[in-house]
């Protein structure tokens, strides 16, 4: 995706010098391999800071919430869907935005590559069409790109932006997948006790740093339920019940809104697969309401409206 960099800079330069926007939000190249930093540029001479590669997994919609200026924003498929969600939820106006659409090839999974390296430290990572070539002091390892995509990218069916003002390249072919929810169904097949034990295990390292919540563009509430004190819904320690309550409600608050951008999972400093929770809800929303979040700007999300034909099977 490196070929996008020049185009992104050209568009940003044009928008800023023609005074079409006040700022452009994109990514800056990271200071360590497989990372990049969200960045804002407001002068045409600074656009060369902007960058794009396989490590731009953070969702830039997160930086749009309640802004009042005119913004050029670089958006891959999932970002664009979250922009739609933001528009639906009145967090930003479409007229403020100039969306620089990026057809995405999927982001690479830093945590899995680091785990596979088992303590060896990469100093350079180059991604080509099929491979991820990782080099470090005294070693070179190659990984299959498709296998080491972030899990949400591997199961993504909306790689092209759904709204944009300009695309940086031709659209990419969308993936055709047999079953995007295989991992969820595997958990559903377990018995209640097995499920409980499974989630106890995956949530055990949680530090309550809230990186998953804060990386999420959906989490813009002024006061999060974990911070409420009258009443205080849950304790602040790392007691397993409190940790589980947090993860349960965080996921539930994303029901019918989550675009599976994977920012939460990418942000987690202790590698908890937090998407297993949101993905279950995505699957249910798709099954029950036939709804995919962030596709159309004028449709309210299903948990936001009542329709006479809403599924009611659970009501006695």
């Amino acid at each position: 995706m490196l070929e996008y960099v020049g185009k992104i800079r050209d568009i940003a330069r044009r928008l800023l010098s023609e005074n079409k926007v006040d700022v452009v939000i994109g990514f800056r190249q990271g200071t360590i391999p497989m990372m990049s930093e969200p960045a804002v540029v407001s002068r045409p001479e600074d656009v060369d800071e902007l960058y794009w590669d396989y490590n731009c997994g953070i969702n830039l919609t997160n930086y749009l919430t309640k802004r009042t200026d005119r913004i050029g924003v670089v958006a891959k498929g999932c970002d664009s869907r979250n922009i739609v969600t933001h528009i639906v939820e009145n967090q930003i106006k479409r007229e403020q935005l100039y969306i620089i659409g990026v057809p995405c090839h999927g982001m690479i999974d830093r945590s899995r590559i680091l785990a596979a390296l088992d303590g060896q430290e990469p100093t350079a990572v180059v991604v080509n069409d099929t491979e991820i070539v990782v080099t470090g002091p005294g070693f070179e390892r190659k990984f299959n790109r498709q296998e080491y995509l972030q899990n949400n990218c591997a199961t993504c069916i909306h790689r092209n932006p759904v709204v944009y003002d300009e695309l940086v390249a031709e659209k990419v072919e969308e993936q055709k997948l047999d079953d995007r929810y295989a991992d969820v169904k595997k958990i559903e097949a377990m018995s209640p006790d097995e499920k409980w034990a499974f989630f106890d295990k995956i949530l055990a390292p949680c530090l309550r740093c809230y990186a998953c919540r804060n990386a999420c563009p959906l989490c813009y509430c002024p006061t999060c339920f974990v911070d409420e004190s009258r009443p205080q819904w849950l304790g602040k320690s790392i007691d397993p019940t409190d940790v589980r309550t947090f993860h349960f409600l965080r996921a539930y608050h994303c029901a019918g809104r989550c675009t599976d951008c994977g920012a939460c999972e990418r942000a987690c400093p202790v590698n908890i697969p937090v998407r297993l929770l949101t993905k279950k809800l995505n699957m249910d929303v798709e099954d029950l309401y036939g709804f995919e979040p962030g596709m159309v700007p004028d449709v309210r999300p299903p948990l936001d409206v009542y329709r006479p034909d809403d599924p009611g099977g659970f009501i006695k």
Partner: protein
Amino acid sequence: MMKGLLEYMGTEPGRLHFSWISSAESTKFVEVANTVAEEVKALGPAKHFIKEKAEVA
């Protein structure tokens, strides 16, 4: 949806119930109240999601 996620995380189905009863349907109320109680009773005491003394150092 909420029931779905609770069950996904290991709470037994049958702990959470929803119903819709008009204020005139006292018989339905009694019926549902009894069914709910029976189902919960069959599951036995709740084991999970209970916050007792915090399990910390």
